Every structure is written in C-alpha cells, then in structure tokens.
C-alpha cells in the first residue's frame, strides 16, 4: 500500500520534497496557502536594482503531475492523531507529515515598525514591498540611510549586509554617495554574525565608508522622525530606514502545542529532522528550530534527507549551509558551514558573483530535482568538512 505523505507549504523545501517522492510508493499531497511560488532571493534585486525579472510562478506548474495540490491555509495539525485541518474545512489524514511552511515577517512586536515598512517598503516579504523600497531608494537624494535586522533571527543571514552594500553601490552610481551617510546596525557584536566570515566582511564595510552600530536590537521606531531606539538604549536618526522585520512561524495550532518554540518555529531534531517527540512528522527549511542559517540551500538539503528517510534508508542532516553573498560591484563570496565545521571564510571574487547569478537562473529547474546530480557534486566538493577545503583556507582567523 502507498504511504500517504502530506507536505505543508509549497515553497523551496516543500516543492522539492514533494517532487522527489515517486508515485509508486507514495501518495503525496501538498497543501499550500498561495497559488504562486516566489523566488525570494530575487527580492534583493527588485529593491536595490529595480530588477524586472519575474519572481513568481504558478505552483501547479512546478510540481510533478502525480503530486496532489491543495490550495488552502493549514490552520491546525494534530500530531497525535495524524490529522491536518485547513481554513477551507478539509481534514487530511497522513502516514507521514512534512512541515515546510517557512517563516514570515511580523512587524507587530516593535512599535512603529509596521508603519515604517508600510511606507518605505522592505525586501523580505513580497514583491510589492520590494518595489516600494526601490521607489523609496529612487527618491533618495542624500542624507542618512540606516539598514539592519531588527532582531537576531534573519532569513538569509547575508541579506542585511548585501542590502547595505547594494545601497552603497547605487548611491555611488548616482553620484549621491558624498552627500550620504550609510549606517549598518546589527544586534550582533560584529557586522557579520559568524566570526570567521566577519573577517572578510568588516574590511569591505570600512573600505566603502559604511558606519557600523553593533549590539543594536531595535526596541521602537518613531515613524515621524525615523528615529530608531535599541533595547540597549542607543539611538539612530535617519532619513531612510531600511529594516528587516522580525520573523515568525506560520500561525498553525499544533497539538501538542509544545512543539513550537517562542518564535513559533517547529522544534526539530537537528540530525534526523523529526519533529521533536513524534515518530511520524518531519520539518524542513525555515519553519524549523534548527541551529543553522535559514536558507533555500538548507531547505533543499533537508528535503533530500527526509526523502531518503521516507524511502526507507534513514539519513541525517549535517547542518550544511552554503549561502551566496553579493558584495556589490560585481564581487561575491559564499558562507559555508556545517554543525561540526563552523563557517569557513571565503575570499571574495568575481567568479563567485557570477555563480550566485547562475544559481538564481537555475532555481526553477532545481525545484524539479533535475539538477540534483550536479548540485550534489558541487556541495560535496565545497563541503567545509572536507580536509582539502579546510587546508586550502587555513585555520580560522581569530581562533
């Protein structure tokens, strides 16, 4: 008999996983709230470069024909009785469940934030918000831009620094840099959270004249004067605040409720990817509490691990991350690490910038699994746990 698999969320991880389960052994249903699929990394270029590449495709067209697609919002998941309920009134029983509902921006916890992002835009939620941010940047004629993540958890950790570097590039191109002050703020002790990578990033910020405010956890914002105040008591005044709002997990009621942490992330075993305390549910991607970066690459690799386990050969996740990092002016780098081999600093180059752009073009194909053999080889060759790779890079600076 075929196993009934229910996948929640049709983003990067959910789509890849559903496509990788064959029809002979699995009866796969994917439930997703949106009829469309957004290529989120592209929001950066809409916001800072006014890129016109379409970022959205119809989810049905991205799924293998045998995957049953339900367009509905999941409202509750009963892990004890293996039952999913949706806003539209469907009740779906499952043999195995995979939660891949991602995370979403939630400005509500910081006074003034919803008002500011509503007026200025942001680049971590929707295409229209990213366009609004482009319009704000396009109107900017000099003054202070303050950019940063409001709280420590950020989807795609390089994205705040990418944002400030692209803002710097834009102002230089427009001849406005002399008339502008750029302030990068962060709740962390250094501009890039992972120390080895910070050794690459901090000199670049310095070289480009970008000021840095560390330990700046945004407490409140005055939406009239654009004054940001941190929990630590510091103040930044600016003309254009570009803010990464806090993130939260999907508003789904779980039974037992204890599987969610304080940020509504699903408590997940870091290696087996099983939802804590259950034998029949897994979680992948941004929705999880895994102690690793929230990235599409992570969602992809986690989907592969769960697919292998579902097929009967239990696999484990090594915590691999591999985030492409745009350093602007045509240069790029990568942030790669695993649970056991922390982030390795990788020198910036033009080639890595080209690779980032290439990955973006290949995204839609990768959802079908078509590129898996090539990507598997690439991830193996660049695995920071490989002795050759570590040898090439030398020891971590500062360790």
């Amino acid at each position, binding site marked *: 008999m075929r196993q009934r698999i229910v996948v929640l969320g049709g983003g990067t991880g959910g789509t890849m996983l559903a496509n990788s389960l064959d029809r002979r052994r699995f009866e796969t249903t994917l439930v997703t709230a949106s009829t469309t699929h957004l290529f989120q990394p592209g929001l950066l270029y809409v916001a800072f470069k006014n890129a016109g590449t379409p970022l959205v495709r119809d989810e049905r067209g991205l799924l293998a024909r045998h995957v049953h697609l339900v367009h509905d919002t999941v409202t509750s998941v009963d892990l004890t009785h293996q039952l999913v309920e949706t806003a539209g009134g469907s009740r779906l029983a499952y043999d195995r469940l995979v939660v891949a509902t991602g995370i979403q921006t939630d400005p509500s916890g910081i006074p003034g934030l919803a008002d500011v992002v509503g007026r200025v835009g942001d680049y971590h939620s929707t295409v229209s918000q990213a366009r609004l941010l482009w319009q704000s940047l396009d109107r900017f004629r000099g003054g202070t831009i303050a950019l940063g993540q409001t709280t420590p*958890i950020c989807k795609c950790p390089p994205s705040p620094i990418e944002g400030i570097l692209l803002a710097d590039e834009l102002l230089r191109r427009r001849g406005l840099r002399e008339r502008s002050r750029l302030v990068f703020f962060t*709740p962390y*002790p250094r501009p890039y959270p992972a120390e080895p990578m910070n050794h690459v990033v901090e000199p670049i910020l310095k070289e480009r004249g970008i000021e840095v405010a560390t330990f700046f*956890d945004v407490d409140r914002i005055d939406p009239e004067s654009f004054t940001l105040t941190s*929990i630590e008591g510091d103040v930044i005044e600016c003309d254009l605040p570009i803010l990464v709002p806090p993130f939260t997990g999907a508003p789904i009621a779980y039974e037992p409720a204890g599987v969610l942490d*304080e940020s509504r992330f699903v408590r997940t075993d*870091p290696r087996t990817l099983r939802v804590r305390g259950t034998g029949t549910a897994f979680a992948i991607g941004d929705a999880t509490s895994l102690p690793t970066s929230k990235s599409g690459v992570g969602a992809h690799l986690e989907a592969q691990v769960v697919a292998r386990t579902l097929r009967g050969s239990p696999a484990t996740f090594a915590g691999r991350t591999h985030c492409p990092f745009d350093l602007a002016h045509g240069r790029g780098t990568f942030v790669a690490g695993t649970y056991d081999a922390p982030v390795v600093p990788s020198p910036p180059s033009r080639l890595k910038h080209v690779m980032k752009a290439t990955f973006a073009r290949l995204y839609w194909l990768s959802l079908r699994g078509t590129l898996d053999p090539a990507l598997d080889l690439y991830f193996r060759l660049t695995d920071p746990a490989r002795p050759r790779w570590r040898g090439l890079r030398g020891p971590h600076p500062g360790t």
Partner: protein
Amino acid sequence: MDTTTQPPRTLVDSRGSSCPGPITDLSMAYRRSTVGDVIELWATDPGVKSDARAWSQKTGNPILSLDERADGTIVVIIEIKRR
C-alpha cells in the same frame, strides 16, 4: 519552609549551536526578559565567552558567573538589570 523568593530564571540551551547561535539565543531571551530576571545560557561554542562578555559590557547586565563544566558545556549566568 524556605520562603526566599528566587528571581525567575530562564534557561537558554544553545548547546550544539555554533557561532552566532548562542548570542542569537541570548539576544532573543533578553528581548523577552524584564528587569530582575536571571538568564542561564548553556553553550558549547567557545566563542560564547568573548561574545557574552562584550554583550554584558554593552548592555550593562552583569555576568554573575561564567564556568566551563567537565562535559564542555559553558554556563553563563546573567542578571538582567537594564532593559
């Protein structure tokens, strides 16, 4: 009967999480804390020592103790005095 009231203690378990995991968890706990709370942070990443010291200095919340247990767990106890 012991009538001493202990301040609420929040345990933040960041064991197994590498830099910047522990400082992320500490910051999130700080955000949810109120003056008088005590945060007990467990971590295995050695970078937590310098990060927690820098954090304490910046925020004005003193580290009551910073110990390393035999099993490699670093335990940092912080009193929240400023928010």
